């Protein structure tokens, strides 16, 4: 079912430990409740639920006391952010210059030239910041896998080889 596939894709936006534990059950519940009619309403309710519950699960995951931070990964992410950020700023400056020279910004006014350059700069900085935040966040979460595995092993849910 296409709806189920889309909902499954949406579940990737939940924290991994939560998704691993409850993802299958959530898809099953979504499938079992899928109506024959008024599908739009059902999707609207599901999306509303998603927008409330996903941030809540992320907050819980981030505030978890047994959260482990991989400092090597964090350093890698910061380095990556610096390199990617510098490249993006360079790209943005080149883009701004190009846009002005080919006449995308047709006005000769210095104000519009500066505005265009600022816009490109802001845009690239914004993208750079998102890349940086995401990579840093991903690195800080990378130590979490070991913690989850050890907890599952100690609780006897999975067997250590």
């Amino acid at each position: 079912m296409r709806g189920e596939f889309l909902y499954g894709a949406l579940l990737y936006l939940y924290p991994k430990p939560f998704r691993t534990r409850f993802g299958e059950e959530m898809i099953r519940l979504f499938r079992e409740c899928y109506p024959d009619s008024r599908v739009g309403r059902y999707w609207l309710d599901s999306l509303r639920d998603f927008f409330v519950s996903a941030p809540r699960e992320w907050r819980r995951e981030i505030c978890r006391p047994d959260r482990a931070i991989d400092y090597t990964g964090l350093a890698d992410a910061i380095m990556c952010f610096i390199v990617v950020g510098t490249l993006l700023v360079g790209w943005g400056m080149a883009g701004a210059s190009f846009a002005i020279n080919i006449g995308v910004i047709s006005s000769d006014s210095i104000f519009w030239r500066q505005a265009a350059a600022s816009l490109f700069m802001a845009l690239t900085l914004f993208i750079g910041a998102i890349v940086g935040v995401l990579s840093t966040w991903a690195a800080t979460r990378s130590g979490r896998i070991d913690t989850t595995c050890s907890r599952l092993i100690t609780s006897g849910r999975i067997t250590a080889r």
Partner: protein
Amino acid sequence: MGKRAASKVEQKAPEEFLPLTPAVFHILVALGDGEAHGYAIMQNVLTRTGGTVRLSAGTLYGAVSRLLEGGLITELEERPDPEMDDTRRRYYRLSDMGGRVLAAEIHRLSDLIRAARATKAVQKMRPA
């Protein structure tokens, strides 16, 4: 959950879990009748509330996750009736602590209702 964590949960007084969120309260009430899987919990809540409370998957399993972590419910290792049901379903059961928390919450809500009923405004609205 490890033994150490479980004993920590046991040491907590039921009142420390209060007040419960509506979703958690409804799930505990639904499990008060016996073990159930996610879909059965959702249907139970829907029927019990006359269709006014529908727990969607994210809210339901978010609450289930918190309840499991708090030791208020447990996941069953075995299926109640494997021949009648899909063995891939996970069943949940109210723990002793969960029962105590539910009782404490019902007591708290009863006190609130009693206090509300004692107000002049509510007494005026009472049918003769």
